[in-house]
């Protein structure tokens, strides 16, 4: 892998750029040290694996949002997809008595159907934003409400518990000693890092987010790429829903609700710019890790639930300030 080595040191500018992606590494180290003082359990492999598994679903949504943000767009509706896509998909499978539609299609189709629903939501977002030329912020804000509303309406606001075993498998299985969710998320992040680092299609996201007119002039099919990004984003959010469902063993009416704030926080402290064209998938991953570690430390420390939000928000602000100081550039 000589490529990986050159990427690290191809020149002063790019090297600085790489550092900027990793400004959260010191924060992560501080959190690891601080955590080990808080509770001896913290640094055990079991606990750290636990942190990763808990964050894997959120991480997939961060991956989706990072792709969309880098391409210069916005998607708030991802959090609703996390709940709605798996809920509706399993309702095709489970009997009426368990809250289903009564169609009882084969259980093996549930996960593909779930991903398809996610892709369709992304495609519809793309349609409104690209074809109708509407603002991504407003479209996906409306879609956030619509998609969640659809879930509430169809489930009658109830949680779904009697789920097919195959649907729960991915969220609960253990492969080679690690939860399958960690493997899946890890592989998808690796794919994202490779795509955005080494493939033309991936690099075109930076061109589009950085200067869409320039991208067009360079022959990039801007609308098509963006549409694909929205579809991939929706699909990843649906997959996150599958993992979360498997981990918790059921789909509550609130699955995914409120995630989008954490998603944006993770992406932005990880160095992804809200203005598009800047940031990396690796950076976004460090953002997720910071959030996960903070949450874990607060839990171990026994911080009462009512105070968690405050501490949580404050720590995100501090992480932002640290990455701003370390990165040396104004945050967008």
């Amino acid at each position, binding site marked *: 892998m000589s490529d990986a080595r050159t990427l690290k040191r191809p020149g*002063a500018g790019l090297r600085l750029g790489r550092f900027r992606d990793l400004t959260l590494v010191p924060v992560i180290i501080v959190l690891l040290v601080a955590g080990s003082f808080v509770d001896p359990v913290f640094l055990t492999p079991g606990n750290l694996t636990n942190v990763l598994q808990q964050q894997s679903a959120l991480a997939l949504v961060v991956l989706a949002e990072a792709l969309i943000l880098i391409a210069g767009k916005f998607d708030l509706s991802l959090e609703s997809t996390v709940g709605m896509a798996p809920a509706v998909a399993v309702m095709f499978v489970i009997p009426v008595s368990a809250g289903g539609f009564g169609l009882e299609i084969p259980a093996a189709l549930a996960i593909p159907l779930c991903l398809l629903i996610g892709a369709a939501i992304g495609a519809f977002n793309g349609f409104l934003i690209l074809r109708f030329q509407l603002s991504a912020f407003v479209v996906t804000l409306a879609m956030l409400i619509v998609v969640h509303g659809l879930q509430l309406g169809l489930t009658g606001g109830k949680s779904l518990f009697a789920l097919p075993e195959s649907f729960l498998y991915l969220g609960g299985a253990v492969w080679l000693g690690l939860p399958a969710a960690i493997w899946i998320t890890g592989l998808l992040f690796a794919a994202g890092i490779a795509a955005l680092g080494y493939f033309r299609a991936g690099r075109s996201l930076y061109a589009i987010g950085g200067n869409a007119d320039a991208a067009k002039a360079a022959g990039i099919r801007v609308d098509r790429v963006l549409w694909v990004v929205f579809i991939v984003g929706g699909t990843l959010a649906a997959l996150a829903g599958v993992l979360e469902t498997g981990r918790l063993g059921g789909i509550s009416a609130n699955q995914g609700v409120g995630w989008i704030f954490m998603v944006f926080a993770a992406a932005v402290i990880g160095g992804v710019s809200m203005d598009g064209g800047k940031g990396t998938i690796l950076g976004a991953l460090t953002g997720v890790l910071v959030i996960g570690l903070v949450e874990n430390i607060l839990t171990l420390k026994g911080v009462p639930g009512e105070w968690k939000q405050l501490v949580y928000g404050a720590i995100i602000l501090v992480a932002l300030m640290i990455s701003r100081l370390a990165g040396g550039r104004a945050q967008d």
Partner: protein
Amino acid sequence: MTSTDSAVVEARGITKRFGPTVALDNAGLTIRAGETHALVGRNGAGKSTLVSILTGLQRPDQGEVLFAGRPAPALADRDAWRARVACVYQRSTIIPALTVAENLFINRQTEGRLINWRALRTRAQGVLDQYGVDIDAGSQAGDLSVEQRQLVEIARALSFGARFIILDEPTAQLDGPAISRLFERMRALREQGVTMMFISHHLEEVYEVCQTVTVFRDAKHVITSPVRDLPHDALVAAMTGEAAVAFEARARKVDAKAPVVLAVSGLGLAGRFQDVDLQVRGGEIVGLAGSGSSGKVGLAESLVGLRRPDTGTISVNGTVPRPGDVPSTLKAGLGFVPQDRHHEGFVPLLSIGENATMPIAHKLGRFGTISSSRRRSRAEGMIQQLDIKTTGPDQPVGDLSGGNAQKVVLARALSDDPSALVVINPTAGVDIKAKRALLGSVEDAAARGAGAVLVSDELDDLRICDRVLVMFHGRVTKELPRGWTDSELVAAMEGID
């Protein structure tokens, strides 16, 4: 000899409409191999539309484009277009967050599937070296200067193999020395057989680097002529459609006893300028000249409170406003036109009336309210006074052409009848008629007794000044009274005396 024999590009009978506006009306031009062909015209003459048609970004409603006598490729075939024509657009197409290397090879980073960053960087460095651009391909494009970005764009344009380049107002954002370096480069490219189309608002540049000139006016082709057969006045006449009246700076005499309206002593800002002393009397226009790094813009921005100087004092009308504080400077009686009208000059979505009366909003009503009828009447007066071409005071400034938008910015500066006026590059990117109107308004203000500081990169603008201070490396190095020659001023700006 028919025109197509040696024509690199030919546009025939091009018509393009955008809704009700006709951007090009049966216009065309022919550019022969090896020439540098100027395309000039006032704002809205159709130059930019022709550029986007010639580069395959837009399809003409009627007419055709031929490259070397053959029909242009299909619009979707970007590679075919780029092999025929390259363009350095007016708006930078460099993506700041990416490296220079990636910008050079954007969307063609690799032949295969995986991008090999080391090979990409080597290839990019090769392209830069080939065109003599001294930039590290690994550096971040956002760290480059405007001039360097432009060089990267030119190198990128040529690297597609095109032998015909369009340069759309390349000099608009460059300072004097950078423009001369650009021209040297253009001459060298021409010697290598590269054909160029050059767009500029500065007619002297046309005479300096072009062999042929085509004039567009009101979406139509007016004339194509060898540059040497078309004297300056005739060129201006072709552009404006009326006999040229050379811009005559008005003869003015500054009353030596007029009060000092703007006084500066010992002013300094680290890294920008030092030890500047300056006194402007009422009725006087003082020019500030210098290269891009001379500190002239920094000085002007300190005068108006946009920057806070480290040392020295500024007094406006005898009072000393708080340093680095725009509102208190305005209150002391100073009006200003900022360097970048798009960033600091106006709010594009707000109406002309609202933009122009922003500093005097408190005078248009009581207790924080604004009377819209009073605002309207004030704005109508300004529109008339500055000859702003608009449908009325309610039109958003964002819809106006560059020259008219700049007039709104000047109207705002003049709205409170300031006793001191600071004007930074007022004529950047505006056409010749608007230029005259803008400079005329500054002279009007001086005639009303205001003292003005005019910062400009354009020598012609500075002719209205009673004296010109030349800055070099942050210091005022020379003072030239009215009647200076171009070479005198340029020599002082370059620091060669």
